[in-house]
C-alpha cells in the first residue's frame, strides 16, 4: 500500500491508497506515529483521507487507532465505510464526507 502525506497548515493529511490489510497495517501505523511525533508540542491534527482506500480489515483499524487519537477520517468508500460502521469506529472517530469538510471542522482557532 502506498501512503502520501500532505501538510496543510498545522494539519497533516495522510492518503493511503489501495488495501489497508494485515500486510500494510504495521507500515501505515509507523508512518502515522512518525507524523504525530514530528508534531511535537504543537496541537497539530492528522486527517486520514480514504478516497483512494479500497479495503480495510481489523488490522488496519487497529493501526489507525494505535497511532493516536488526534485524527479525523474522510471520504470513505462504501466497502470501507461498512467496516468502520460495523466496528463502531465511526462513532468514536470524527468522520467527514470529504477532505474540505474535515479540514474546516478540525482547523485550530488562530
Amino acid at each position, binding site marked *: 500500500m502506498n501512503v502520501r502525506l500532505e501538510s496543510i497548515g498545522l494539519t497533516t493529511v495522510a492518503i493511503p491508497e489501495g488495501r489497508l490489510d494485515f500486510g500494510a497495517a504495521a507500515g501505515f501505523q509507523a508512518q502515522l506515529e512518525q507524523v504525530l511525533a514530528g508534531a511535537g508540542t504543537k496541537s497539530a491534527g492528522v486527517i486520514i483521507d480514504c478516497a483512494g482506500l479500497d*479495503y480495510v*480489515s*481489523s*488490522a488496519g483499524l487497529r493501526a489507525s487507532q494505535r497511532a493516536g487519537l488526534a485524527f479525523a477520517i474522510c471520504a470513505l468508500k462504501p466497502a470501507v465505510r*461498512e467496516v468502520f460502521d460495523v466496528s463502531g469506529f465511526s462513532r468514536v472517530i470524527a468522520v467527514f464526507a470529504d477532505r474540505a469538510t474535515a479540514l474546516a471542522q478540525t482547523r485550530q482557532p488562530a
Partner: protein
Amino acid sequence: MKRHTAVPSEAAQLPVLTQFLQEFWSAADLPPAETVTFELALEEIFMNVVMHGSPAGRVPRVEVSLALQDGRLTLMIEDDGPSFDPLSLPAPDVTASLEERRVGGLGVYLVRRMMDAVSYQRLRGCNRLSMTKRIREPTP
C-alpha cells in the same frame, strides 16, 4: 461452482488467498460490492490461525473452499491446528471509546456481523469455520 485451495498458515500466504478469492469472484461473475465481506472474513480468520493457532515448531495447514449455490456463497476455512472455536470469543464493546477498547475479538466480531451465518465444528482433528452470505437472488 466450487473452488478449493490449501496453504501453510504463514502471513505471507494472505495475498495468495486474496487472489484465490478474487479469481473466484471474476469467474463466477459476482457483484463487486459484495467482495468486502468475504475478503475480510478470509483475512480475519486466516490471520487468527497464523497468529494464535500455530503452535511453536509446527505450521498448520489451512484449507480454503468457496461454494456458490442458489445465490448463497459459503466460505469454509479449515486448519489442523489446536482445537479453537473463534465464535467462543466475547464480542468487543463497539460503543467503547478507543482508549477503553481491548485488543482482540474485533475481527471475528466483524465477520459475525457481516455474514448471514457462521458456524464452527471440530472435525477429524481440524477446526472448521463455515461462513455463508446471500449475494444475489437465486436464478428461477
